[in-house]
């Protein structure tokens, strides 16, 4: 408890979430330190997306608490919109706004939420677009871009809000294999830059490279977690072992 450094970027406590009768998250506990990169792995349907959506308050939770920094974002009467500004999310299907240019996509949040002037917002956007090799595309509409470019724009759109925490939900699974690398490079660069991130992924190799810690999500709980090498090489739980064997069999490790 020695000053601000000790306050984690994110704390999730006993998080529960059901859809109708099916309880998808059954008591998730997760703490993420500042500048830490956490990879979420787990079978399809294990609740990775649901967990990320809950953290971004896109789903109403049924129990538990979520803290960002020292603030509880799930507190009764919390200003949901204000908390969302501090948490960026990038989706599997990009979800760019198809009726807007790349620049308008990226500046919408800073202008309408942060209240930046058009000039300031565009300067901020151009800086980011330039950094990720997208600046020539600034006036194009999303349907003129490749999948990889669209996903990089989506990342830039989230970054333009200068979030404290970035959530990435299988951001490469909708991409053609040859486009995956350009997106992963962006994430790698962000990790090196100290961005706090949680990424749900099926790319184990990438998770091992970029993550400080891997969490295995199974039946609505984090069954096992640890540094990548330890968790991927010598998992303790039988279910983790079986999951990883399947992944290896599918050639994804």
């Amino acid at each position, binding site marked *: 408890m020695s000053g601000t450094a000790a306050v984690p970027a994110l704390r999730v406590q006993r998080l529960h979430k059901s859809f109708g009768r099916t309880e998808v998250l059954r008591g998730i506990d997760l703490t993420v330190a500042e500048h830490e990169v956490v990879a979420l792995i787990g079978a399809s349907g294990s609740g990775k997306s649901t967990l990320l*959506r809950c953290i*971004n308050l*896109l789903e109403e939770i049924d129990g538990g608490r979520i803290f960002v920094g020292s603030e509880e974002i799930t507190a009764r009467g919390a200003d949901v*919109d*204000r908390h*969302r*500004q501090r*948490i*960026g*999310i990038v*989706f599997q*299907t*990009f*979800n*760019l*706004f*198809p*009726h807007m240019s790349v620049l308008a996509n990226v500046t*919408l*949040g800073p202008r*309408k*939420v942060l209240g930046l002037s058009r000039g300031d917002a565009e300067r901020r956007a151009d800086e980011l677009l330039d950094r990720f090799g997208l600046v020539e595309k600034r006036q194009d509409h*999303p*349907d003129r871009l490749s999948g990889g470019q669209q996903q990089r724009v989506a990342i830039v*759109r*989230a970054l333009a*809000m200068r979030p404290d925490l970035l959530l990435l939900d299988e951001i490469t699974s909708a991409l053609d294999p040859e486009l995956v690398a350009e997106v992963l490079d962006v994430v790698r660069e962000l990790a090196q830059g100290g961005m706090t991130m949680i990424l749900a992924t099926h790319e184990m190799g990438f998770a091992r490279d970029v993550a400080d810690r891997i969490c295995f999500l199974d039946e609505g709980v984090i069954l096992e977690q640890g540094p990548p090498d330890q968790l991927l090489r010598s998992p303790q739980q039988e279910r983790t072992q079986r999951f990883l064997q399947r992944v290896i069999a599918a050639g994804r490790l």
Partner: protein
Amino acid sequence: MSGAADAESGKGEAADGPGPDADGHRPGVLIRRPRRGDPVVAVSVAVASTVLFFGAIAWAVVTAPDFPRVQRAFLNGPLFEESLPEVVRAFQTNIKLFLIAEVLVLFFGLVLAVMRSLPGPVFFPLRLLAVAYTDLLRGLPGILVIFLLGFGVPGLNIEGVPNDPFFWAVVALTMIYAAYVSEVYRAGIESVHPSQEAAARSLGLRRSQALRYVILPQAVRRIVPPLLNDFLGLQKDTVLVSFIGVVEIFRASQIKQAGNFNFTPYLATALVFIVVTVPLARLTDYLVTRSRRGQARGGFR
């Protein structure tokens, strides 16, 4: 080259009926589209068959035993010439009605649609109100609404309430068509994938901002054709308000008809409507086709 080959094999797979026969012919390949003929021949055939078809109908009408009588009652040339400018002048009232009501309908329809899509239990009464309103106004015959408002409300003689029939005509048409148009808006809003709202909200935009900057702009593109359809209806329904005493095109032709014991003025009125509505109907069809093609191309994004 490989594209064509892919398309060919794709077709073979899609027709997953019987496999290739003894000669190795795929059944699907044997079915050929009829060859398209020479365009000149096609146009000539179309013209000839059109002339024949409508000619036959015209001949049947003109040779009908009572045609001369009908001709006198409906097709009086001089009277037509005389009434056309008069009904056109009266039509200005319809245009005014239509334009005012249209703007109001666009506004109130949106208000209703947004009311109906408000989330959470707090807004239940507003949602209920919106649903009840649209059900009621779409369920009642328009002429009844016009009568109830046009005769009923002024009949109450409440201080400060206008009794100008034009005013009540605008109110009635707006109320009726706002109900229809709110459904059009709602369908448009719901046609925008929820992931778009999620993306907008994740940036910290409030719901109203997400609606305004992200959802509505996408919805509006898709609702232009059905909206035009409703406006076509509104345009025609402006004649209904003649029954509460607004002197518009239908009322004007009625007066003219009664003065001459001849129906030709109605024909002039019909002509005026056709000149205005048919191009709008064509435009609507064109937009529908175009937006359907656009959707097929764009797919889900």
